[in-house]
């Protein structure tokens, strides 16, 4: 492709002229060959965020702002933002040397910085607050499929940069909705996309000193209990609690509780289920080497060199009181693979309407665990072996135990990937499924439900 063809860009919206009056190529010279256009001296003072938009209004003939970022950096920042906030818009602050993507909800906030490959043609203390539609990032800029195609075509010579050209002249260039057209170039694509100048507030609070964070361990501790809190945000049980080595979450409505032990967490925390799920996604993106965390003013801060996030902590909800293990009626060990397969098979037989699963444990020491669901014409059943604990005298004639359990909870009894067995304890009010491995323990208690009318 000829360079002139590649770089040319017939601009349909109004392109401001350079200060010298020449009509510069809008996209062609976003890189080294054109130095950043100086901004008039009277705008060198750092404006407040509210002033940012007014700056645009007041200056009708400023040169366009040019900057570029690495695609991988923008993608990482966007993923971090998406982990915390699900919105139709992406808000961003453009500074001279970085672009900060910002998103917040009433429980969490995330600011993800993207270093600029080529600095923005702004003064050192200047900034612009922008708002893009999210699909620009999702469908084009951060979509790996587009990159793959690009890589294939160019056989290793892929264009890894995304170049932006942003007109500062809101007056005249903006449409009735206050949008101007930003020009973006990456690979073979040149996009024109509406952008709004909407002021935003960055976190003013300094980051807590914090302590080093093992994001893998913290993520594992959250994952072990997050699914067990109530889904409804109105519920007092929509939270999960962690302390130094243990955690608990449960939903009395759904009749399930998960208790963990041995998961290393240094600070006691109570998080909303939604925040915990966001945090699980975010922790996968946080840089291990520079990850830190701390709690200030009832807010959990998790951050690294580029990503800064804050999650509001919850007050501890009503205390969950799981059935005591002292009321144990029966205990046995089932192999994970067989029990997992049995659960999957029986769940596949459940009709569209939610139906509880009957669990029966019978036989001697080498006993049988049977799962059953009502189907058209009777019961579908599947069995797996269980090694029952028993006194020597009665080992051949152990009592049969039966309980009806929620199918949703039954699918979540496997808390540890590496454990090879599941302990099954029959309690008076519940069935407890436990797993242990590497000093970590998960106990999942499912409440006994009423038998359905068949």
């Amino acid at each position: 492709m000829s360079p002139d063809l590649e770089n040319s860009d017939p601009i349909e919206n109004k392109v401001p002229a350079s200060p010298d009056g020449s009509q510069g190529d809008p996209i062609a010279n976003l890189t080294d060959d054109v130095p950043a256009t100086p901004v008039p001296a009277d705008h060198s003072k750092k404006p407040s965020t509210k002033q940012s938009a007014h700056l645009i209004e007041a200056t009708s003939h400023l040169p366009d702002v040019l900057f570029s970022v690495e695609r991988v950096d923008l993608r990482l920042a966007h993923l971090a933002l998406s982990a915390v906030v699900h919105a139709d818009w992406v808000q961003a602050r453009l500074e001279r040397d970085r672009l900060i993507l910002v998103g917040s909800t009433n429980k969490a906030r995330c600011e993800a910085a993207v270093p600029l490959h080529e600095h923005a043609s702004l003064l050192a203390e200047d900034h612009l607050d922008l708002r893009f539609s999210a699909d620009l990032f999702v469908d084009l800029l951060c979509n790996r499929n587009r990159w793959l195609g690009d890589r294939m075509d160019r056989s290793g010579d892929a264009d890894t940069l995304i170049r932006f050209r942003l007109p500062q002249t809101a007056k005249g260039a903006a449409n009735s909705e206050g949008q101007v057209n930003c020009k973006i170039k990456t690979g073979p694509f040149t996009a024109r996309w509406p952008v709004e100048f909407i002021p935003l507030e960055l976190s003013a609070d300094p980051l807590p000193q914090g302590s080093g964070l093992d994001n893998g361990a913290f993520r594992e501790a959250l994952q072990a209990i997050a699914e067990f809190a109530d889904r409804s945000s109105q519920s007092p049980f929509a939270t999960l609690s962690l302390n130094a080595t243990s955690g608990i979450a449960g939903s009395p409505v759904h009749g399930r509780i998960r208790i963990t032990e041995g998961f290393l967490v240094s600070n006691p925390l109570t998080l909303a289920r939604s925040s915990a799920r966001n945090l699980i996604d975010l922790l996968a993106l946080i840089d291990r080497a520079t990850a830190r965390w701390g709690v200030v003013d009832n807010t959990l801060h998790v951050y690294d060199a580029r990503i800064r996030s804050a999650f509001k902590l919850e007050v501890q909800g009503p205390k969950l009181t799981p059935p005591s293990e002292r009321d144990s009626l029966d205990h046995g060990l089932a192999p994970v693979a067989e029990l997992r397969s049995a659960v999957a098979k029986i769940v596949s037989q459940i009709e569209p309407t939610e139906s509880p699963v009957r669990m029966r444990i019978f036989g001697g020491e080498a006993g049988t665990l049977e799962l059953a669901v009502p189907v058209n014409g009777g019961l579908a059943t599947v069995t797996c072996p269980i090694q029952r604990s028993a006194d020597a005298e009665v080992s051949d004639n152990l009592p049969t135990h039966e309980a009806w359990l929620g199918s949703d909870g039954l699918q979540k009894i496997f808390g540890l990937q590496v454990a090879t067995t599941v302990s099954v304890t029959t309690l008076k009010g519940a069935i407890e499924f436990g797993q242990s491995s590497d000093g970590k323990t998960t106990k999942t208690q499912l409440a006994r439900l009423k038998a359905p009318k068949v």
Partner: protein
Amino acid sequence: MPSNESGSSEPGLEANGSTEPFAVTPADAGQELPTTSPQMPEQVVAEDISPFKDPITHGPVEPYQGGPHKGAWEDLSFEDIVAHQSHEFEESSFFTELAKDPLHLAAVESFTGFTIHTSPTLAGTYRCLLDVDPLKHAISLVAAASGARNSDREQVKVALSRNQLSIRSAFGGAFCECVLPLATTCDDVPLGGCVAFVVLLTDMLMTLDACENKIELTFVADQSRVSVVSGAFARPILTKNFSKFTDITEARIGLIDPKLRQVFDPSALAKACRLLAPYVLDDPVQESFNVVELVNGRLIGGSMSAVGFVYAPALKGRDLRFRGRFLPVLADFMPALDKCYVYDTGKFYVFRDHRFAFGIEKTERRFPAEIAALLSVEKNQDRVLLPRKQLLHMLAGMTASKPIDGVASFIGLKDLHNVHYELTAKGENGRRVRARSTGARQSMIDTAIHAKFSIGALLNTVKEFEAASTLIDFYPGFLVTRESDDQVEMETLISLVKPLKARKPSTKTADEAFEEATL
């Protein structure tokens, strides 16, 4: 002659004494099957395994020298043969056929109609054992044949004989039958007899989800129940009213006349259907377009915006006409068939090999003939050759702007050897995505090309092929892409949103010319 008119006094029995849908008797096959291999395919028996030929190499039999040698079956153990001829074993078409075809190929030749099970079995317990994977495959085909219909209410008829089980469905304008061998002989069924029951398709699908390796089906006739056991899993399935099942009767599908059958290559039709499916809409407004037609080896179908023509030499000489909604069903079902016969019953087309039968309703409508004539228009043909991966990448990128009506514009400027082209898609709120690249010029016409077309239509055809480049011809009012691989050739006619504008290239630079064309 269909079996339901065979005049048999006993329900479910054919005149030849067999009730098995795909079964063959020596009388049907025209000769006795060899005793050494009772399941030997009939065509192999007739053509390849003559007394004068080696059954493995198909060459002349060498004289016996007192030791193991090729062709001396009775002198060799299985281990001997494997030890001496393992590579020939693997390559031998005879053994491939035998492994693939546990039933009788002769059944295909002697097929004259579907066995109709006219009355339910009311007493007895019948147990059979099957491999799960073929059964899952068969049920998935039955489900595919039901198309987009609600499978919650669809019923399937299961017929059990001594050594095979058939599953039959008939939904709307399509039907199918799958025949599976049993893992062990079912002695509960009387010799030459057959028992049948009807169950919900959804019950079968759910049940098979939990089954592995082998499955044992026990039909308890007086309880109207089938008990399924597979390893540690067990469940019952209630049978349904036998008389309410819509069977594959002659009154419904027409007369199967073996004289009118034709050999058919299902893989070619499967590929053609898969390529054509994205262009065919089940649109009652454009009824004349709601037809797919196979004429002279060319499958034609589409809508007002895009029409596909898929030519496969293997399909030549077999003309078909059916409604567009069967296209995805055919694309799903045809790969399951081996080389098969197609029968024209007057009402249905029936495709049948030794395991599966599949039928779709015919239509008398024809695809608009004038559309096909457009392909031969020579006027103002402008041809370019564009690198495929780049074009695909660019078209995919165009969709990011969520273009209005899914339309992109193409501007091509040509120099002596190349075409410099630009794709542009415009969305709402001033969004626009544009990409530029270069292809090869293939015509001597030096006018610029300016066309608007559906991104999706071009994307569908470009992504299905693997050649390095895509050939596009521009005509007034439409463009045509021409693609091919070793099995098919495809031409896709895509309507232009605006008629093609021919412009002379100016002396301006390419950028200026693009800008002028865009404005």
